[in-house]
């Protein structure tokens, strides 16, 4: 009799504990300053945390609190997310998802291994990375490399639904972190190097049915352009079916313009912002008519190859385009426009404007009115940009240096930035406290030879041989603070290698970034002084994040595991005496293997426990 009562009482206790664990909806989760509920911290993609326990005065005492191997040895881009007391993160292919209860972080609460076709490995241009899982309403959303979107129960790790978003046999992969807003989860598609036709898709969170999908090339109806709804700011992008007519013949059908990096969202305007990749093929000769074979001349707008290398602003509910702007018309250098769009308010000529800031691959830092698509400023953010001398703010068009235009059969040397850009997908952060951006950059230039390319589904459609090397000054990259109003560097930490990891900044006054050779660094946001660093087991291409633990201590976490495009010299099994291998990366990164090796690990840091007590 007594035993039965004991069992019942215990069951009741456990049951009530279960109910107490109910997962919050996304809005509630995002309002919690202690968490990190979406990949980019917030819809504006600021990667700014209001947590301030860690300061320039005490960060020197930061120590490793706990760590967990991922068991995977390819590049780990992306970042963990934290909702309440739960942390979730994923790995490089095979994209295992780990759930950790932060009350007992030395064990894994659950682990989910998706079905994931290894054939997709062959269509991932730049290592088999994943930029993160997303959360909403008790579900974790995982994009798998082979093109599925899995909705996983956040408490149990059980699969709730899965949809096939992309077809890897056609050169399409999936690496971007999803964006969840309201009742929709939005995903992209990768494959700009495979002649895919890029698109963006919204699914209903509840059951995975498709809400909308639009393409980034082709006729207006398929792109989501409607007269009266679509209002681009610049004349050269006003017109009918520009996603067809700015291409020769049917080239738009294999025109790239994929969606492989970051999304932002403005709740007031109800607009989703993202950038599109390079056009298909890299070799631009195929994207302009034969009479212009030698040079695009002054025809960049006519043969702009829309809507590649553009920022797109789509209505969340319908997917239709409100406006767009193209950063690099008729791209000849692989200047994907997929880097993050950070949403802030800035003063311009005495007026407060709602803008987006975008550090493009092409070396220019754009400030754009995010309601209208007007470019307010576009200075360069790195040394030696030479494919164009400036962006003409009247027309929105770059003023090109035609001698840096790439051509079939010719090797054009010393083009800056390289195809990797002065920044690639590694995200910058913004602090509303300082008004500055904290930007991880590449200092890379290239030689680019146009070669033959034939479209074969599932085979790279590139048409270029590239050799990348360090740019002016000889260093590989830097981490800098950038003033968007003055358009200038406030401070800069030069690094040996391109800084391929994303930045975090905090109200405590400390910013974090990781280096390709494995140093995780904390810097004073005012001066850039490096106040603390930790040598991780493998190079860092993940994005730092921070959260408040259940013990009221601030933690900082980052994934270590070298790879990505720049780290392929270590993560891939390459022969380093071919400088053009890995789409040009080998030449610039051939010595990376002296400094780091493959790995896969989550590192989590905090101040010592007694430090918290004495601070209070």
């Amino acid at each position, binding site marked *: 009799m007594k035993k039965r009562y004991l069992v019942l009482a215990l069951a009741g206790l456990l049951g009530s504990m279960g109910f107490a664990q109910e997962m919050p909806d996304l809005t509630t989760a995002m309002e919690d300053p202690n968490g990190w509920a979406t990949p980019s911290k917030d819809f504006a993609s600021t990667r700014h945390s209001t947590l301030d326990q860690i300061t320039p005065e005490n960060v020197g005492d930061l120590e490793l609190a706990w760590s967990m191997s991922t068991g995977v040895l390819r590049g780990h881009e992306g970042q963990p997310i934290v909702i309440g007391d739960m942390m979730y993160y994923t790995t490089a292919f095979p994209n295992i998802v780990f759930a950790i209860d932060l009350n007992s972080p030395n064990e894994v609460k659950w682990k989910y291994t998706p079905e994931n076709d*290894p*054939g*997709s*490995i*062959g*269509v*991932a*241009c*730049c290592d088999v990375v994943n930029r993160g899982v997303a959360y909403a309403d008790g579900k974790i959303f995982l994009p798998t490399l082979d093109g599925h979107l899995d909705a996983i129960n956040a408490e149990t790790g059980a699969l709730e639904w899965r949809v096939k978003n992309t077809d890897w046999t056609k050169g399409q992969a999936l690496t971007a972190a999803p964006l969840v807003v309201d009742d929709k989860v939005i995903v992209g598609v990768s494959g700009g*190097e495979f002649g895919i036709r890029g698109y963006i898709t919204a699914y209903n969170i509840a059951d995975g049915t498709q809400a909308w999908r639009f393409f980034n090339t082709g006729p207006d109806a398929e792109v989501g352009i409607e007269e009266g709804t679509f209002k681009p700011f610049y004349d050269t992008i006003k017109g009918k079916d520009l996603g067809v007519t700015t291409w020769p013949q049917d080239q738009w059908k294999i025109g790239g313009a994929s969606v492989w990096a970051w999304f932002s969202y403005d709740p007031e305007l109800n607009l989703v912002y993202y950038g599109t990749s390079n056009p298909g093929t890299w070799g631009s000769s195929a994207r302009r008519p034969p009479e212009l074979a030698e040079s695009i001349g002054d025809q960049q707008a006519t043969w702009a190859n829309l809507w590649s290398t553009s920022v797109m602003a789509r209505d969340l509910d319908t997917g239709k385009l409100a406006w767009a702007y193209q950063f690099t018309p008729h791209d000849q250098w692989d200047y994907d426009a997929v880097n993050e769009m950070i949403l802030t308010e800035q003063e311009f000529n005495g007026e407060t404007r709602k803008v987006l800031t975008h550090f493009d691959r092409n070396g220019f830092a754009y400030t754009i009115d995010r309601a209208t698509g007007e470019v307010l400023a576009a200075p360069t953010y790195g040394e030696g940009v030479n494919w164009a001398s400036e962006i003409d703010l009247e027309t929105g068009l770059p003023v090109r240096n035609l001698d840096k235009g790439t051509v079939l059969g010719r090797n054009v040397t010393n083009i800056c930035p390289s195809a990797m850009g002065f920044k690639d997908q590694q995200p910058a952060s913004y602090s509303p406290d300082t008004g500055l951006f904290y930007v991880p950059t590449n200092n890379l230039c290239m030689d680019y030879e146009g*070669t*033959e*390319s*034939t479209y*074969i589904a*599932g*085979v*790279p*459609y*590139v048409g270029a*041989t590239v050799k990348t090397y360090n740019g002016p000054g000889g260093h590989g990259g830097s981490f800098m603070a950038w003033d968007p109003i003055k358009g200038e560097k406030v401070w800069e930490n030069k690094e040996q290698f391109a800084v391929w990891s994303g930045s975090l900044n905090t109200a405590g006054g400390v910013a974090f970034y990781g280096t390709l050779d494995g140093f995780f660094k904390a810097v004073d946001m005012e001066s850039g002084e490096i106040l603390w660093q930790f040598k991780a087991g493998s190079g860092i291409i993940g994005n730092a994040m921070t959260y408040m633990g259940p013990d009221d201590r601030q933690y900082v976490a980052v994934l270590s595991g070298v790879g990505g495009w720049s780290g*392929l010299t270590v993560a*891939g*099994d*390459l*022969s*380093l*005496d*071919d*400088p*053009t*291998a*890995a*789409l040009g*990366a*080998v030449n610039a990164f051939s010595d990376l293997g002296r400094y780091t090796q493959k790995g896969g690990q989550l590192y989590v840091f905090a101040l010592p426990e007694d430090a918290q007590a004495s601070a209070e």
Partner: protein
Amino acid sequence: MFYRRSNTFAAAALAIFVASFTFTAIAAGDAAAGKALFTGKLGCYGCHGQAGGGGMGPSLADKTWTYGGDEASITETLQNGRPGGMPAFGAQASKKERADVVAFVISLSAE
């Protein structure tokens, strides 16, 4: 008498031996033609680098072979593809073209 016959026999054997090499060389592909295909229209360089150093795909210039580095294995790989991302080129390239590419690939690790 015996000596002369064995001489003839030896000469014939030698001739057949040499001829078998020549025959193999003709049946094996033309590495130079293979290089043109590898770095051009078949797009191999896109995954494997202009000199086979690798990238999206593994290096073909080293001694490590996931699916075998002998001529028959590489031919099979090229014709039918392999798990882990190597596409099938059976339809994209003729038998002669495939043989040429295989010859070029073998030459990359012979250096």
